[in-house]
């Protein structure tokens, strides 16, 4: 943890990664991916709070911290999804998704159904959750990191 970017990224990613899996709270993501972007913003806020003032806005650092928050967020999301599924949370949604697929008359292959979690907690579901989280969380948390750098950057006093 010597890298000053790691701790803020871990906190920002973990907090919002877990929030993104919780029932009802996860729907905040429907508002412009707010949770994913928020993870990057929080991580950069924490990073810049400890960083020395700089003349130039550190967009590069913001992007890196945001991307790291996305990586940690994806891991947190996957772990939280596994825990919630083991506790039985989310099974109703999976059943609804399966019913919707059946109702539409489309015959999806088994691997797609596994990805959607309709077959319960399996390797396919865990893997697809992680891959999707790492792509989506990575992109939106990086944008959040850039936004955080723009908003929370403290200018050097001349």
């Amino acid at each position, binding site marked *: 943890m010597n890298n000053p970017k790691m701790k803020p990224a871990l906190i920002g990613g973990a907090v919002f990664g877990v929030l*993104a899996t919780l029932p009802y709270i996860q729907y905040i993501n429907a508002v412009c991916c707010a949770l994913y972007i928020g993870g990057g913003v929080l991580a950069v806020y924490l990073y810049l709070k400890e960083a020395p003032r700089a003349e130039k806005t550190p967009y590069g650092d913001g992007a890196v911290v945001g991307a790291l928050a996305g990586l940690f967020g994806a891991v947190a999301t996957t772990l939280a999804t596994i825990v919630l599924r083991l506790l039985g949370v989310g099974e109703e949604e999976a059943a609804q998704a399966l019913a919707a697929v059946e109702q*539409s008359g489309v015959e999806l292959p088994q691997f797609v159904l596994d990805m*959607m979690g309709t077959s319960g907690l399996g390797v396919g579901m865990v893997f697809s959750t992680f891959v999707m989280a790492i792509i989506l969380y990575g992109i939106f948390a990086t*944008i959040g990191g850039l936004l955080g*750098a723009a908003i929370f950057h403290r200018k050097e006093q001349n």
Partner: protein
Amino acid sequence: MVRARRQREGARAAARFAAEPAHASRGTSVLSLACLCALALVVAPPLLGAAGWPYADALRWLLHSVCHQLPERSFHLLGEPLAVCHRCTGLYLGFALGVAAWPLLPALSARLAARPRCIVLFAVPLAIDWLIGNSAGSRFATGMVAAFPVGLLPLLALNQHGSRRLPPDHPDYKQGASQQ
């Protein structure tokens, strides 16, 4: 004094945009390509569904965690809703247009780069639109307005990254190093 400093910073940013496209051009190309891929993912499900591809809904499902995807709040193509709602379509399109357009607007981008917090102001119409009554057009338009300036931020990050990689004999080498 602060204003003069901001103007100097803005002029420097504009000069970097104009004089150093090569440093960030590869990154900008990758970024533009990624934006096009995201837009393609948005419009692909109805197009592929119309073409009879059976997994179009699975493609739509990929974006389910970042958008509510309500059909009544989404644009339709060939009778099928796009993969994201009006507002998200505006956000994605606005961001992609921003990435494409900001390098062509050096003076404006320099002004915004000197006052990056102003980017938040562009999200105010979206927030107002979300809080009060809205229509498909207003959701799309406010989404575009909010995301367009955000497209500048990755370009600025790429520009800083390019400045770091300048050779020591480059006239902007010290400038690039002092920015960090």
